[in-house]
């Protein structure tokens, strides 16, 4: 449906043909779209089947019965929600990276805004939905700066953070509030300014091994993300170290 971004890819790296394994099923936040395949490749984590979308959407799908072994969320909130609902063991959520929010504009923009307050001068500012981590943190930052009410009529919701990025890349929205790592992957946009880190709760990427038949391999997958090599791959994609 609307999820142009929700792709499932089968990455079968590092597994030998004599050991046919059931692929590990991973549901990952849209902001991890590019780094997860890189991690799987670099750390030989395959075979895995990855599905990307907003963390909130994935959490809903898992609750609705989607068979998933690993959930990689762009904030702690949705991982904690699934723990509370009994989909994973208490204390099993592990943070593996951090992120920052930035405001992006189309690359050729000449008169780019420099503060969140200046966004009010634009026609459309794309953000992820209010329940999506990037959208929730963006709104928290606007609230903190006291400009949320003024900006609300100009905010256009994308189903996930990459959707907000795409609206700017296509020139339909003048700016978007996205993660710093998203800004890096889209050549049609550039960062206008960083959203002050103190304006919003920290953006922490959290992994969760879900209850089911493959909890051990799910745990190994998460351990690999936190290993020195895993951190190096994440750092190369612009992610900060876990807190």
């Amino acid at each position: 449906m609307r999820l142009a971004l929700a792709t499932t890819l089968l990455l079968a790296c590092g597994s030998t043909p004599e050991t046919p394994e059931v692929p590990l099923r991973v549901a990952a936040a849209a902001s991890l779209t590019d780094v997860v395949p890189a991690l799987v490749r670099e750390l030989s984590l395959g075979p895995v089947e990855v599905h990307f979308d907003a963390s909130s959407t994935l959490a809903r799908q898992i609750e609705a019965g989607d068979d998933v072994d690993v959930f990689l969320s762009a904030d702690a909130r949705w991982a904690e929600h699934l723990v509370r609902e009994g989909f994973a063991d208490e204390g099993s959520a592990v943070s593996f990276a951090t992120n920052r929010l930035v405001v992006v504009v189309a690359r050729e923009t000449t008169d780019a805004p420099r503060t969140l307050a200046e966004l009010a001068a634009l026609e459309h500012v794309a953000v992820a939905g209010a329940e999506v981590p990037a959208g929730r943190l963006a709104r928290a930052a606007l609230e903190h700066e006291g400009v949320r009410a003024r900006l609300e009529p100009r905010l256009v919701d994308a189903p996930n953070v990459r959707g907000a990025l795409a609206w700017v890349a296509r020139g339909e929205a003048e700016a978007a509030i996205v993660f710093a790592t998203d800004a890096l992957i889209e050549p049609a946009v550039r960062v206008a300014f960083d959203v002050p880190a103190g304006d919003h709760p920290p953006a922490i990427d959290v992994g969760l091994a879900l209850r089911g038949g493959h909890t051990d391999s799910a745990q190994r997958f998460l351990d690999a993300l936190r290993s020195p090599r895993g951190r190096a791959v994440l750092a190369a994609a612009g992610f900060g170290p876990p807190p």
Partner: protein
Amino acid sequence: MDELFVPALLSLLVASLGAILGLPIAIAVGHRLVRTRGVMRVALSSFVLLPLALPPVVTGYLLLLLLGRRGLLGPVLEPLGIRIAFSTTGAVIAGLVVGLPLYIVAARRAFEEVDPALVEVARSLGRTRAQVFREIELPLARRGLAAGAVLAFGRALGEFGATVVLAGDVAGRTRTIPLAVYAALSRPGGEGTALTLALVSVGLSVLALALHELLASARSR
């Protein structure tokens, strides 16, 4: 309450405008199709029916390539102040385009059912083509066109894919019932809203289809 009324009103507005704005197009193309033969007929008919077979998301994307700010017609629309993305205009265009094939098929059938003998007699009495169209064909095709309008209305009511790609999901501007249901389903505790909207949606669709049935059976008598 706004969560229910605004999407419902917006849906009615988008679907009604689709049915009204589509009428001249359905008449023109439907009438043309009756008179066109051979390869041209196949070509024209495949082109106008395309949105029926295409995934709505693809229709939306093609419309974006055509009408978006960086689209083919973007440089024409921009100076006129017409913005498609995030506007009700975009939602109306999406609804109109996905409803058109049904509208055109209904119009073609309506014109096909007009007795050719009547047209010939009128022509032999010295009426021009335009007069024959206005005084004979159009009045006789009236019910069929109305049935087509109801179908196009119903289709626009359910439009999701093309709308979300072309116009985005903006509360109060493009968030029609289907988009509101999807938004409600993707947030915790939204099930109640989703269910109410689903019931409204069922009600409106049943009304539209019943109206279509009435018009269609009245025509066959």
